[in-house]
């Protein structure tokens, strides 16, 4: 009796066991060590940024030691070109880097999730049109386009967020679209439609909850990309010059002769924390994505590059 009703695809995803949606993340965390490590790193840095102004040892607007003072007991990570404590700068710079990362990702997720769901749910000309736009944007080198837009628009924090957000949604849209197309064909969705549910209702009540975990996995992976891009834009001088972020710390060190002064402490720690956050996002997002989508285990799709595009069959059912 139950057999014909069971959807094989659903069985694959949940490992054959019935599980609730909040249970899904618990299962992932229990079964995948990488997810735990990744999530811990992310949570650590988020908590650190929240409490940074209260626990950072020095002010980041006042000179507290000699120019390029090496690490010492009082200043664990030394000082930068303005005699500002590096450790405090790293702790507080992380705040804005993470805010940019999260905010840009939010923009990207809204666009990417929206495009993916619309495109996957309503096939036909909406799908064709949206996917064409996605394809074109995928080919154009994003950092280069971002530089042009950010420079023409002017250097500011808000502009950096928007520029990253409006260019980093493409791979999300593709992945979500593929998932929506498979959810749409499931028996219960068809039955709901037969009972007269509207498109809006089906999307909100049935499609969105099903693609939710995948969207979250993608969000986490996109945060890593956004943080990376923020540091790149800041390095090129396109970030608001009045704020301190991990990207501007690197820019300052490069511009103001940290290298010829031999001040490695002004450069090395910043890169390590950026890499730690990116690896954390990568491990967690990857683990969730793997658990959700067995197809991603296939060789060519297993690594999430900055972009993802179908390897074969660029047609309708490509991921």
């Amino acid at each position, binding site marked *: 009796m139950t057999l014909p009703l069971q959807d094989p695809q659903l069985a694959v995803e949940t490992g054959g066991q019935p599980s609730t949606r909040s249970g899904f993340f618990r299962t992932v965390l229990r079964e995948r060590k990488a997810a735990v490590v990744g999530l811990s790193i992310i949570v650590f840095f988020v908590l650190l940024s929240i409490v940074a102004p209260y626990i950072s040892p020095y002010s980041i607007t006042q000179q507290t030691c000699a120019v390029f003072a090496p690490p010492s007991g009082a200043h664990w990570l030394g000082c930068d070109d303005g005699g500002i404590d590096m450790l405090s700068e790293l702790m507080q710079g992380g705040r804005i880097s993470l805010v940019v990362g999260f905010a840009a990702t939010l923009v990207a997720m809204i666009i990417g999730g929206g495009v993916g769901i619309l495109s996957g749910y309503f096939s036909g000309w909406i799908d064709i049109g949206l996917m064409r736009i996605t*394809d074109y944007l995928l080919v*154009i080198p994003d950092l280069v*386009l971002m530089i042009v837009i950010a420079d*023409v628009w002017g250097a500011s924090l808000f502009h950096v967020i928007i520029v990253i957000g409006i260019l980093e949604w493409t791979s999300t849209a593709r992945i979500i679209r593929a998932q929506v197309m498979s959810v749409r064909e499931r028996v219960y969705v068809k039955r709901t439609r037969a009972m007269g549910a509207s498109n809006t209702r089906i999307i909100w009540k049935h499609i969105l909850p099903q693609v939710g975990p995948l969207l979250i996995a993608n969000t986490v992976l996109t945060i890593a990309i956004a943080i990376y891009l923020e540091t790149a834009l800041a390095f090129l001088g396109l970030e608001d010059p009045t704020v301190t972020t991990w990207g501007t710390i690197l820019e300052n060190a490069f511009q103001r002769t940290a290298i010829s002064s031999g001040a490695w402490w002004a450069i090395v720690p910043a890169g390590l924390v950026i890499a730690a956050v990116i690896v954390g996002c990568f491990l967690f997002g990857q683990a969730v994505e793997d658990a959700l989508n067995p197809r991603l285990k296939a060789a060519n799709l297993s690594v999430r590059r900055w972009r993802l*595009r179908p390897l074969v069959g660029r047609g309708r059912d490509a991921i």
Partner: protein
Amino acid sequence: MRSADYVIKRGFFALVTVFVAITINFFLFRVLPGNAVTNLSRVPKASPQLRHALIVEFGLDKPKWQQYLIYLRELFHGNMGISFANQQPVSHLLIADLKNTIPMVTVGTVAAIVVGVATGVLSAWRRGTVPDHLSTNGAIFFYAFPTQWLGLVLLIIFAGYLPAAGMSDPFLFGAEPFWPHLIDIGKHMILPAATLMLTAYGSYTLVVRSSMLETLGEDYVLTARAKGLPDRRIVRRHAFRNALLPMVTLVALDLGYIVGGALLIEVIFSWPGIGLAMYDAIGQRDYPMLQGGFLILTLAVIILNFAADLIYFRLDPRISQ
């Protein structure tokens, strides 16, 4: 017949993408607030007359569609405008820069492919052993380090031993013999190309590894093993070749990322390529240069993507089915 269809389809896609890039390039200035004149006329006491004269000179008083047509026409004649900074034609400047960028990016990318494939194959072959863990974790980390940071760290480590800036030693310039000059450029290229290699190889390692693992599980590998072929031969002749297929697509996908990385690397090592030219253009508010750079880099990526599509099609005819 099918293959001709495929080529035409991909070629058409590439052409439309070029057109989209050109259009984005044009409308960026018109959609965002401000234009070239806003910045140029920021001199103290800029009179409305000066502002108006500039607007007329740039043709900004004409309707948008007319500006667009003029832009397209000039672009097809190879005119990308005049650099604000030094009054030279942008196309001449950028083509000179492109000649410097191409060798560095090529060397870096090829090195990344070689290192990525080598470590990936090693990982898959010795799955679960210490070398596997080392190369997989190393790949993830190098993949996560910001490009500019890797460049700076290499600069700190090797600054005394290898040339750290520029493309050649100014004292060698002139009617020098060919070989010393080439060796000099090669030495200058080591650090930038190494940075590019380190930022790009990680994803190749991971993809080759999983692709190798997949092919090693295929029936024809089992058959080869059943025939009693030596391990080395199975890996080299049977698994390796098929495992390399995804690399073609991956390298093509990566081009945009590599171009972005190369831009940062050129800034760090003062490599006189398109990236450095664009960076200087940012500082000098030299918009024609910036747009020209964007257009040339985008064109390069689109053309190479198209080439990769064709190569992939030749390597794996299953794609047309």
